[in-house]
């Protein structure tokens, strides 16, 4: 094979806005660029919150329905627990030199990661392009996004 199985481009679809998913997506996209691999992110459904100007700084980790939190579900649902867990996690991430969401988006954009918003989800949530970050490369349909991913060595990932 011409490409010898090399990963040339990562197309990542982010459909969730819980902090752990958003960071997984950003680290994977940034890590691709660091290895000389192209990367594009398609923000759909709740994933749009990660690029929504008024929401992106207020994302939380999930304390309910997340068995890896090792916390009784009832406790996870109490007021303030999610915020507490989130601030603890943010402190740990800062120690690892993980940037906050807005700075991470700027890094991704400067690193050449293309960022697209899903048209259908935007219509569903009644978001306008001006509600989203200025670094956004555009609003796409699913078909457009697949077209972006054409070529040998492209991999798609759904988060």
């Amino acid at each position, binding site marked *: 094979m011409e490409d010898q199985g090399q990963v040339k481009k990562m197309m990542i679809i982010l459909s969730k806005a819980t902090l752990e998913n958003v960071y997984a997506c950003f680290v994977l996209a940034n890590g691709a660029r660091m290895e*000389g691999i192209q990367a594009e992110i398609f923000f759909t459904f709740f994933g749009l919150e990660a690029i929504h100007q008024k929401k992106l700084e207020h994302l939380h980790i999930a304390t309910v329905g997340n068995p890896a939190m090792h916390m009784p579900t009832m406790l996870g649902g109490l007021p303030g627990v999610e915020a507490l867990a989130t601030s603890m996690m943010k402190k740990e991430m800062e120690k690892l030199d993980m940037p906050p969401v807005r700075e991470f988006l700027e*890094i991704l954009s400067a690193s050449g990661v293309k960022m697209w918003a899903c048209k259908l989800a935007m219509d569903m949530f009644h978001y306008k392009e001006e509600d989203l970050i200025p670094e956004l490369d555009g609003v796409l349909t699913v078909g457009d996004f697949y077209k972006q991913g054409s070529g040998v060595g492209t991999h798609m990932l759904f988060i």
Partner: protein
Amino acid sequence: MIMLKELVGNTIDVNEEGFMTDFTQWNTQIGEALATENEISMTPKHWEVITYIQTEYKNNVPLSIRKIGKSGVVDIKEFYTLFPNAPLKTATKIAGIPKPVSCI
């Protein structure tokens, strides 16, 4: 595994990925030759970045893209323009220091 490599009249120790394993063997001619191997033609700006990351390495500061962006030497966009393919890996290779282990 460490291998010996001949470069511009010097013998250097490199690992299997081509990173130098002994920084004391490094000099600017070797840096220049490593850059050519990686299809980079060095400019004063490139050297400024290389000097910065060598200083960070000597001070035991772990390198990351975020740190480079905050270095005051280059911003991230320019860093990717100077070293287009895997910038941190390429720059550290030219600088004669180990590959950074950071994912960010």
